[in-house]
């Protein structure tokens, strides 16, 4: 199965009620596949007039209590930022898939990791956070998309799948775990707008003009984000117990680093890998713990240096943090990583 298709199947199995999308390379498989499957299943599919319209259709579907998803790639995700800020402010659940490509601007159509800042530091305005999940395999494309819907509903928060053109286009066999299937009908959404029969009218808004109201709301959002930080950090570590040099990478970069680290271990080098799966909330503690034991940390990412800043903050001076970057749609090879680590 292709990575992009695994995203679709994960969404469908998670009970995605509505998908709204727009064509952009390298994620065109997603709207095409959904246009067939969602219609077969009697669910909602619309190819919207723009990525901007699509995120607002997601807002509508989310407002009335449905599980909604949209997908795009970097430039299209920029268009969605207004809608994302509104969704976060109104506390609406939804899933947004970014199959990153080279940027900035129109860039190119190769995979990249240059939207880390946009995803984790808020590309839209205001104080808000998204849960950001970074799959590195086709299996994770399925699993994390499935998980995204549950997390979105649990916390009333938009969740982003931050993947890239390579994982999106990659083909790997996966087994779909049927125990992960859930029944949506038990989810009680007592805030949704579906007509005021049997109850008082409800409103949905992010505009809070009452004296002190917006401040209170922002503190409430912070409480929610602190709760998520406590409960939902996910990461994977390889050989970090005795690592002298630890590599930190996410998504496709981590995939390449994983085999580089394995090879170096076979040659006797004490290296390890930390792979954040949630980019927000960021696994600060595990990085801090590994930094306390290691001589150096190398951050390898396909951009000019984004996650490295969060790693530096987590390391907080305990050891030096080095960087290996591949921006503009470039991909580093296993050999490049091995060479860099050996130099360190």
């Amino acid at each position: 199965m292709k990575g992009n298709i695994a995203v679709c199947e994960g969404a469908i199995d998670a009970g995605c009620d509505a998908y709204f999308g727009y064509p952009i390379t390298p994620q065109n498989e997603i709207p095409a596949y959904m246009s067939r499957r969602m219609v077969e299943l009697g669910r909602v599919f619309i190819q919207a007039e723009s990525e901007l319209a699509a995120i607002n259709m997601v807002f509508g579907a989310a407002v009335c209590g449905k599980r909604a998803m949209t997908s795009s790639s970097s430039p299209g995700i920029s268009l969605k930022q207004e809608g994302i800020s509104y969704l976060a402010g109104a506390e609406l659940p939804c899933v947004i898939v970014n199959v990153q490509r080279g940027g900035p601007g129109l860039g190119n159509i190769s995979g990249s990791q240059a939207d880390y800042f946009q995803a984790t530091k808020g590309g839209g305005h205001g104080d808000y956070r998204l849960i950001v999940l970074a799959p590195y395999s086709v299996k994770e494309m399925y699993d994390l998309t499935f998980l995204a819907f549950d997390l979105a509903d649990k916390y009333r928060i938009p969740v982003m799948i931050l993947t890239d053109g390579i994982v999106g286009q990659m083909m790997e066999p996966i087994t779909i775990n049927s125990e992960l299937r859930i029944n949506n009908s038990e989810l009680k959404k007592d805030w949704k707008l579906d007509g005021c029969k049997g109850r008082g009218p409800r409103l949905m808004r992010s505009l809070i003009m009452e004296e002190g109201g917006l401040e209170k709301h922002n503190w409430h959002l912070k409480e929610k984000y602190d709760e998520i930080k406590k409960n939902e950090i996910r990461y994977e570590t390889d050989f970090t117990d005795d690592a002298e040099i630890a590599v930190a990478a996410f998504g496709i970069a981590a995939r390449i680093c994983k085999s580089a680290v394995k090879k170096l271990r076979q040659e006797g080098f004490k290296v390890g890998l930390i792979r954040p799966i949630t980019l927000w909330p960021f696994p600060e503690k595990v990085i801090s713990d590994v930094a306390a034991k290691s001589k150096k940390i190398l951050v390898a990412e396909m951009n000019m240096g984004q996650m490295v800043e969060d790693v530096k903050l987590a390391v907080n001076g305990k050891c030096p943090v080095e960087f290996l970057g591949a921006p503009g749609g470039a991909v580093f090879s296993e050999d490049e990583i091995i060479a860099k680590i050996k130099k360190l």
Partner: protein
Amino acid sequence: MKKVFSKPESLQDKNNSYCPGCGHGIIHRIIAEVIDELGVREKTIGIAPVGCAVFAYYYWNFDVTEAAHGRPPAVATGIKRCLPDRVVFTYQGDGDLAAIGTAEIIHAANRGENITTIFVNNANYGMTGGQMAPTTILGQKTTTTPNGRDAKRDGYPLKVCELLSSLDGVCYIERVSVSTPKNVLKAKRAIKKAFENQLNNRGFSLVEVLSQCPTDWQMTPVESVKWVDEVLAKTFPLGVYKECMKK
């Protein structure tokens, strides 16, 4: 003696914060009356604009959501496709619908979304203090056209009914006003037709309501309704622009 005219159930018993004489108060009420008469209050979801009517959810007595500026037709599409048996309508001003939201309204109309749009045209941007809108008429002075709208620099007033009536997905378009009691009744009849079309799955309906904005036009309310009749309606003629319903 029996009560013949009073507050509809779909309107809350609150003082609204609109300016004295503003058309929004009348239009909110006639929409509420139509929703009462059709018996659909409990399955209606309204989408409020960004503009003076952003607080419409404080006045209407049914579910209402905010939307980003210009995006109500996309939000309405999301809701209506997911809950096709509910009554979904957007309420938008001239900035919301005719400036920032032109793509969203054209495409919702073009897809023939089975929703209702009430478009309030007061020829300026009220909320932000009276700037030029796409619907500002030539020669009209606003805070961003201090010498009057000039076709060469600012373009022409945008005629939404005329524009949208060319789309196949559209069922019904009518332009009305609330400048006199007779026009208020006509406006209510048009709005009722627009909601009935949704109940009968006929596709997209839009009613454009010419509305008075006394404060930003710098007129008294009585002068402003006269200006709607005598000046605004000359650029934006009242009447039916498309009607798919069989007589």
